[in-house]
């Protein structure tokens, strides 16, 4: 007998007390929990996102629609980055003011070692969740494959406000497609493994800068 038949057979015997006529949806799940914790205007939601991102040590910058180019160029200069990775679909105007760093495009053949030599990466995101201070990447336009926001030590992520911002985890999930590879990011990498005290900066980018662009 295959492992599959063995395990499924055991499960059916173990559930002998469950009436044969019972369907999964007959087991009541009451979803009376909140969709959103509190009522906010879109402005307040963006403020909360900024507060919660900063609370987990992301560096948050805000600007209006015409300004991200200057801001991104300044952030890269301050960091002293010699190279910056740019995924497909990144709006060209975001990089329009970047002069110094060499621009690198991610290719399928790029190895992790090559990515490790890149100083910074600039991406967009799929959605941002205010209540938890989370940005989610889904590999769509301006986001690239998962490794490009992981190996470089400096990640600049641009969030379009209010379009890409939701209040809560339930609202965030509604916007996402499970068939895509998803990365939820809430602050830079961290660990609590030494005496359960939080320390920022382990394997993922140690500096996460989030640019909230109000449109």
């Amino acid at each position, binding site marked *: 007998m295959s492992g599959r038949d063995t395990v499924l057979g055991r499960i059916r015997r173990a*559930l002998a007390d469950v009436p044969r006529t019972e369907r999964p949806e007959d087991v009541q799940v009451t979803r009376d929990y909140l969709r959103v914790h509190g009522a906010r205007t879109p402005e307040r939601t963006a403020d909360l996102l900024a507060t919660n991102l900063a609370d987990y040590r992301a560096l948050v910058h805000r600007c209006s629609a015409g300004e991200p180019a200057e801001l991104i160029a300044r952030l890269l200069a301050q960091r002293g980055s010699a190279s910056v990775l740019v995924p497909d679909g990144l709006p060209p105007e975001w990089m329009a003011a970047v002069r110094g760093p060499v621009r690198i495009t991610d290719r399928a053949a790029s190895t992790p070692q090559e990515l490790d030599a890149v100083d910074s990466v600039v991406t967009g995101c799929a959605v941002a969740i205010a209540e938890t201070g989370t940005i989610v990447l889904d590999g769509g336009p301006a986001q690239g494959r998962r490794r490009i926001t992981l190996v470089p030590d400096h990640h600049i992520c641009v969030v379009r406000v209010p379009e890409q911002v939701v209040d809560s985890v339930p609202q965030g999930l509604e916007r996402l497609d499970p*068939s895509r590879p*998803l990365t939820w990011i809430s602050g830079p990498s961290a660990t609590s493994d030494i005496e359960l005290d939080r320390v920022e900066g*382990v394997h993922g980018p140690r500096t996460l800068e989030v640019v909230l662009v109000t449109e």
Partner: protein
Amino acid sequence: MSGRTYLGLPAFPEAAAQSTRNATLRGNLRRATHTIRDKRARAVAELDDWQRLRAAGAAIKTRTLRHLDHYLGQAEAAVTAAGGQVHWAADGAEANRIVTELVRATGETEVVKVKSMATQEIGLNDALAGAGITACETDLAELIVQLGDDLPSHILVPAIHRNRSEIRDIFRERMADWGRPAPDGLTDRPAELAEAARLHLREKFLRAKVAVSGANFVVAESGTLVVVESEGNGRMCLTLPETLISVVGIEKVVPTWQDLEVFLQLLPRSSTAERMNPYTSMWTGTTDGDGPRNFHLVLLDNGRTDTLADTVGRQALRCIRCSACLNVCPVYERAGGHAYGSAYPGPIGAILMPQLRGTDSELDASLPFASSLCGACYEVCPVAIDIPEVLVHLRERVVEGGEVVRGGTKVTIRPAKGHAAERAAMRAARWTLDHPGALRTAQRLASRTRRLHPRRLPGPGRAWSDTRAVPEVPAEPFRDWWRRTREESTK
């Protein structure tokens, strides 16, 4: 370089008698558990609907468990359709065999690992070592445990029993044996220790071809796996290698994508006391050009179906491994995780292991008694597992014996040895309580002889009174007092 194993560890009372004398261990545990306890309370208090989320989490898990065959079939179909391959393992040995074969087929002799309770449970690292494959743990705490030839002592923070200076010493002495040595002049500052781990593991991540992980959730309807983590080691393992093998307990499945809205709120706040953990990865099969080209899901039984067969004990399978119950447990805080003798310590371990492994060994039979039944574990459990209820149920099973399912087959276990006095006392108590005249006589006798009562109990009660004061018997039995005062007041 395979570390210690849990095999042949002493029963809880002996192990705890040792560990409670270790002042460093007690200090480390007290500091860590109290820190996280207060933070968790604050994180939970932010959500007005916590109890409703908790009820929904419990209900979703109950729905899943009552129809587990249905949901596993759905998950298998979805993962397969998305380009993954699904394997089924009835026990740990079979899972180890499957993973070893999959690694062998790649020709690699080194794998990187994301922290995974399931692979700790089945001793995968030792099995791989036996086949000449080195498994490198990449979670910081798992790394500390692996480098120190140690055993995990906590679900979330396996090295919770180590303080910063012990960690520094382990890094200095052992990192060179596994790869890049610790930087010169390493101090015990947590940030420096984290940096040392980053440098040590980076070369392993960048060259790794095969990774092994577990998963926090498997969404049945979409075939999506979810790994919740903090450091980024999970992301490294889940995205850089060519082959990914995920070993996942069959109870980790949740029915729908929407169900994640409950668990992604419950888990981080219960576990690390954060609104959200730094990184959560979700993947469905394979994606062209992004991440591993080969994905294998190994669905693990290893005693879970036996647990499912127990209508009281099955609620233990709702567990999402947050470890909140460990952090509030007075017994865990004093005895430490190693005393529980498995990858699952603390209150959840005390109800999980005697069900997953059975109660044949003295250790597993002792676990349901490793509790004061204070109920703090139930209060904090995000999926409302009534741990005290299951503890009492398992105590009864150990003492009385009875019918259970082991390895998929019904067997009758005999009452455990060493509980004869308890059984005799319970029988005597039952008889006395059924005979009011005898009870009255015994109580009066006890009151009148109270001056003669010893401070320590003789015979089988001695062990109990070794560490406790024997309660004083009142001068007058309650029933006598009741009659006297009532008769006086009605006069």
